[in-house]
Structure formats: structure tokens, C-alpha cells
């Protein structure tokens, strides 16, 4: 009996340590809200007009770097674990091949418990926005959009998400590049 308490404490401490380290080492693919774009193979990767892949450590650095100049943007970035964007051009391309792929992704999301927030079909354009809740909070946002003759877009954001805040930030950006497809250095644009 003399040794029971220290022993139990040791086991508890070891288990807590294990849990803590395991949490720290959790892979992005295991996070709720993660969309396996590589697995879904939505668009041909070598034909993407824009590709953005930002993961947790880089987003933390972005949050730290923008803390003073843009506190709201910084706080959003600090809560995120991943941002992925893929833009596939549909100018002069038959979008019939893309439509079933979008449908497959929608089916995958619904099978995994994502909730449809917006679903619009208008003049051939299709837009789907799905949110995934985990522990009463939004843990993932996925947007799928297809506009024949223009472009198809998929956006997946993983982490602590406040859609209203994201929308507010997006409105304030007014990036002129979006009128025409951007050519950011980090964002992949094939020659």
C-alpha cells in the first residue's frame, strides 16, 4: 500500500505526457476538417492556375508577422491549421469532365458528416459550401465552385473558423488580381 500512490501518479504522469506529445505530433491529415485533395483528385495538378498550400507552422508565422499591422487577420491565421486553394481554368475547356468530380467531392463530404451550408445552381454555375462541426465548433470549411467558361475552385480551411470573420476579412481585401487570375509567387501558376 505504501507504494500505490506514487506508482499511480507515475502512470498518470506518463499517460498525460504521452497524450500531450501525441497531440503535438498529430498529423494534419488526422484533423477534422481536412479534405484530402490528393485523394479526391479533383483537378489535374499540372494544369492548376492557382495552388495554395499553407500549413500550421507557416500560418503561425503569418499570424506572428501580421499581429501589429492587422490584428484581426492575425487572430484568424493563429486559429487555422491549414489553408488549401486550387483553381482550375475552364476557359475554352469542356467542364463536363469536372462536374462529376465536384459531385464526387460533395458526396465524400456528406458521407463524412459535413453539413451543407450553401448550395447554389445558377445558369450552369454550381457552388457548394460545407462546414464540419467538431465539439460544437466549426473545424473545417470547404468550398467547391464551378463556373463553366471561367474557372473551378476548391478551398479547404482547417482549424478554428469563424465564417463571419472570414467573410469580413475577404471583403476588405479587394484584390484586383481576382478580376484576372493572379500570378502570386507562392501560388502555383504554370507557364
Amino acid at each position: 500500500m505504501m507504494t500505490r500512490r506514487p506508482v499511480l501518479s507515475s502512470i498518470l504522469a506518463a499517460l498525460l505526457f504521452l497524450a500531450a506529445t501525441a497531440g503535438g505530433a498529430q498529423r494534419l491529415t488526422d484533423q477534422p476538417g481536412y479534405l484530402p485533395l490528393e485523394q479526391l483528385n479533383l483537378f489535374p495538378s499540372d494544369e492548376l492556375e492557382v495552388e495554395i498550400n499553407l500549413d500550421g507552422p507557416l500560418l503561425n508565422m503569418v499570424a506572428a508577422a501580421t499581429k501589429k499591422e492587422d490584428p484581426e487577420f492575425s487572430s484568424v491565421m493563429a486559429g487555422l491549421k491549414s489553408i488549401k486553394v486550387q483553381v482550375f481554368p475552364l476557359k475554352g475547356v469542356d467542364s463536363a469532365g469536372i462536374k462529376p468530380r465536384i459531385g464526387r467531392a460533395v458526396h465524400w463530404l456528406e458521407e463524412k458528416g459535413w453539413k451543407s451550408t450553401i448550395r447554389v445552381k445558377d445558369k450552369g454555375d454550381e457552388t457548394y459550401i460545407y462546414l464540419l462541426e467538431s465539439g460544437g465548433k466549426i473545424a473545417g470549411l470547404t468550398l467547391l465552385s464551378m463556373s463553366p467558361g471561367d474557372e473551378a475552385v476548391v478551398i479547404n480551411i482547417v482549424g478554428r473558423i469563424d465564417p463571419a470573420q472570414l467573410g469580413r476579412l475577404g471583403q476588405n481585401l479587394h484584390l484586383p488580381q481576382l478580376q484576372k487570375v493572379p500570378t502570386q509567387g507562392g501560388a502555383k501558376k504554370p507557364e
Partner: protein
Amino acid sequence: MTIETITCDEALDLLEPFVDGELPFAQAEPLRSHLQGCRACAGELALAERIRRELRALPQPDCPPEVIERVVRSGRGEVVPFPARRRSGWRVRIAAAAAVLALAVGGGSLFFNLQQRPDRPDPTQVAQATRDARLALAYLDKVTRKAGLGVRDEVLEKRLVIPAARSVSRSLGEFQAPADETRKELR
């Protein structure tokens, strides 16, 4: 001089004091005589001598000082209680194993994370990532805004404005135009 003969049982009883050099000459001679003629007892003697040699070859540990102290104190008539022996049962062993496992996993994970994490952020990389993050949010806004317009066209116009216009027109006997044309007029 005649040497007394002994049996094997008697010879085996004498072997131990013989090997230790404690057997009187009167008993040792009959034993030697017996061993010369008895291979089984000679084998027993060889085994006893070998055991004795190997025991002597073993290292002799020093007596721990606390034992010497205890003996000295006992010699003085002091009552020296034995210290409580620490139990190292299965619980302690499991705890130790769990701690070692946790350290191994935690250390490995920490090492892996440190390997992956750059020591200092590259300002160019961070600036580019900031632009990409803003671009991602702007894309989100662009597409959702477009979807918002779609919602207005699809939901409000088709399902509310146009049906309302139809019903008003019907009631006035004027409605003939197809939905698309009505939509254009409403715009």
C-alpha cells in the same frame, strides 16, 4: 604392515575430510588403497577436488561497511533493527516501463518536430505565405459573393418574385410571358 580394506560407502564418507586435509593418517591410508582399486570412488574424489578448486577461484566480495558496523554494534549489545526493505513489486516495474515508454515516444516526437521546424522563419517565405493567405480569403469572398448573387437569382427571384408576379398577372388576366422573359422584365 597390512592396510585395512574399506567399502565404497565408507570411502565416500571419508572423502570430504580427506579433500580438506583433515583425515588422520590411519584412515587416509585405507582410503587411498581403496581409491587405487575403485574407479567410481576415484571419480567422486576428482569431482570433490574440482568443486573445491572452483569454489576457491570465486571472487570474494568485501563485507559492506554497514554490515560490519551492525556486527560491531551487536557485539556491544546494542539492538540494531533491520531497515525496512523497499518493495519493488509489479506496480513499480509497470510505472517504470510506462515512464520509459513515454520518454521514448515523447522524445522521438519532439525530435521529429524539431527536425521539421525551421530554426528561424525566412521573412520572404512568411511574406509570401501572408500574401497567399490573403489571396485564399479573397477567393473565398469572391466565390461566396457570386454564390450570394446566385441565391438572390435562384431563390428570391424564381421562387418568390416571379410566382408572385404570375399570380398577380393571372388574377388580372394578363400573364402570358414565359418565366425567363418575366425575369428579364423584373430586372
